[in-house]
């Protein structure tokens, strides 16, 4: 089996780790992630990642083409057991976020980390997926699992906390009703 078939299903590279990698690459002399501006604020010490990243035009085109292939391969409307559509979530997110380069970078480095368990950056990740059309079915299934993992990570790390804060714990709900 090729290395592209060796899926490390137990790996969960945290998004923060990937962001950290993006940040480090922004200072690399071989940098392909170019911070467009920099601000000072009280959050900066924490959000030192926050400069938007730009892919080269070639990388952006390739990343978009690969994402389309991955989404089509997986099935845009395919629903998993949890009753949501991972590919639709990813595709809609790409359509609606303004920093598409950052999203594509995060997406591909996340998948690459999951599939190889090694260090990643957008160049390595795009190179890794470039010939995905020739991959054997088992390897493509591994990619599908990684894609689901990414969608689930977005839900648990962003969307779920966004909505959750409407719902106080039961004891607080009881107390507020009682008053």
């Amino acid at each position, binding site marked *: 089996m090729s290395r592209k078939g060796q899926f490390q299903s137990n790996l969960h590279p945290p998004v923060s780790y990937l962001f950290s990698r993006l940040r480090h690459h922004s200072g690399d002399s071989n940098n392909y992630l170019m911070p467009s501006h920099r601000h000072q*604020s009280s*959050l900066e010490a*924490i*959000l030192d990642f926050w400069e938007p990243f730009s892919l080269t035009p070639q990388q952006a085109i390739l990343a978009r083409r690969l994402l389309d292939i991955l989404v089509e391969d997986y099935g845009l409307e395919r629903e998993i057991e949890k*009753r*949501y559509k991972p590919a639709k979530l990813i595709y*809609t997110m790409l359509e609606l976020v303004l*920093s598409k380069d950052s999203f594509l970078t995060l997406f591909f480095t996340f998948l690459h980390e999951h599939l190889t368990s090694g260090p990643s950056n957008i160049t390595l990740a795009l190179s890794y997926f470039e010939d995905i059309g020739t991959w054997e079915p088992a390897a493509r299934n591994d990619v599908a699992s990684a894609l689901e993992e990414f969608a689930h990570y977005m839900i648990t790390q962003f969307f779920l906390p966004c909505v*959750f804060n409407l719902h*106080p714990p039961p004891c607080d709900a009881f107390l507020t009703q009682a008053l």
Partner: protein
Amino acid sequence: MKTPQPTPTSSLSTIQASTPTSTKRRISALRHDCLVRDHHRCVVTRKFDITEARKRIAIDKNCTDDDGRPLKTEQRGNFQYLEIAHILPHCLTKVASGDEDLVGIIPATSSISLTGHETESKKNILRILDIFDPGITHFIDGANIDSPSNALTLTLDNHRLLGEFKIYFEPTGGAYEYRIHSTDDDFLSDPFFPVTRTLMLSPNRTIDPPSPRLLGIHRAICLILKLSGAAEYIEHVLRDSELVTVEADGSTHVGDIIRLRIDGWISAF
């Protein structure tokens, strides 16, 4: 997150009790500014604030609304309790370890010190927010989160719908004009939606209008949740999380609830 309200009759008075004075003062100023800017009317329904109406009637039976129309000509159903809703949830922007505001606003956060997981989780939120709109975290940094540009005057129902990402504002291209949509469908679909509204401006425009950028992020989240089916999944998780004993309920969402617990979004079961 549902924005805490400063009025004594607020159903969130338990939260106020633990809210630091600085936050209370900010929220109180925010409520005042938004009510003035929005002419004491719900941005969605145009219903008038019943508390303000009572105050005005007590002074003058022939009182008028902010635009000079006699209040007594309004139908009774057009008076409602109004609240101030944050467009982007207040607590999501509070990430610093030991942030007293965070502790005050989220009762579940029972300790001043956030754990590494909690802080990391909240940082992830901001990182992802910045992908939605680069630089937005600076726009809502610090006290800016309680700026009128991140708030709307709404009825209780619409405050809940906004916070649950079940209604969203789509710009029409007209100045301050939005088409407000609901994501509910089937028999839950409210025929009131979609509705087009032009946002009110404050006298002399001294109070910022709701930010189109923040409304844009809110809209994007609504659409992603709706189109992917994640909204239903999240509802299931939330329903499960409301069960105090989850270990025996056969839930398939326990892992995500535990994740929320580790990340500090909910307290111990």
